[in-house]
């Protein structure tokens, strides 16, 4: 199982910081270079690199160096796709059963 490689405590520690959440959010849209990441966040390159190290250790983000440019991307194995589908599915049924409860409180027409 891919997801077992990820230490959940590390993931939560990594995501507990607002800057690191902002980084993950940006990378979930597309891969970015370290420089492009730093600009809109308005923090120094050194700070971004430190945050990236924490994110890499947690298994959420992967970085690759090509020449002088380091590119960062989301590591999809960080949390498996199936787990997210499952959460969605469960939430859908829970909402349905709540609506069924509303329906059952109405007086029975039969």
């Amino acid at each position, binding site marked *: 199982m*891919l997801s077992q490689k990820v230490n959940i405590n590390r993931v*939560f520690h990594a*995501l*507990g910081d607002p800057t690191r*959440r902002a980084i*993950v*959010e940006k990378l*979930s*849209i597309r891969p970015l270079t370290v420089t492009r990441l730093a600009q809109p966040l308005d923090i120094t390159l050194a700070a971004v690199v430190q945050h990236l190290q924490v994110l890499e250790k947690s298994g959420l983000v992967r970085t690759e160096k090509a020449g002088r440019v380091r590119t960062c991307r*989301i590591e*999809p194995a960080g*949390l*498996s*796709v*199936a787990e*997210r*589908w*499952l959460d969605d*599915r*469960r939430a*859908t*049924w*829970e*909402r*349905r*059963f709540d*609506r*069924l*409860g*509303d*329906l*059952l*409180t109405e007086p*029975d027409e*039969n």
Partner: protein
Amino acid sequence: MQTLSVTHSTFVIEHNYPATPERVFAAFADPAKKRRWYAGGESSEVEEFQMDFRVGGNDYTRRRFREGSPFPGVALTNHTNYQDIVPHRRIVTAYTMSLGEKRISASLATFEFLPAENGTNLVFTEQAAFFEGADGPQIREQGWRKLLEQLAKELSR
């Protein structure tokens, strides 16, 4: 590295209703009633809802995601087949879900209606095979966004 294309999972949801098992069961058997609680939702519009409530019968639901939802314009379809029906006691179905043209899962869904002092305990068990190959970039992005929102909520408590 090899990647598995199917992931299996089971989950159980229990829900108590202050109504008799007969009434709860009727909300599954009567298409007008079932449509109200089953097919609704804010993010999508019901385009088709067909029911054939008997063992071997098939249901078909097609919903389309609205603007502003994760996948605007994309159809979400459900094919259900009734495997077992014991009136007021149990319903077992097999169903598949598709997003657009792609099937994303196949499941066995069991609904048990257990009489309780104050009404009915509904026990729902889903045993699902999720097809990972169905995961498109949009879904991936949406999954992460949702995860982060949930986490932000959790942390702001």
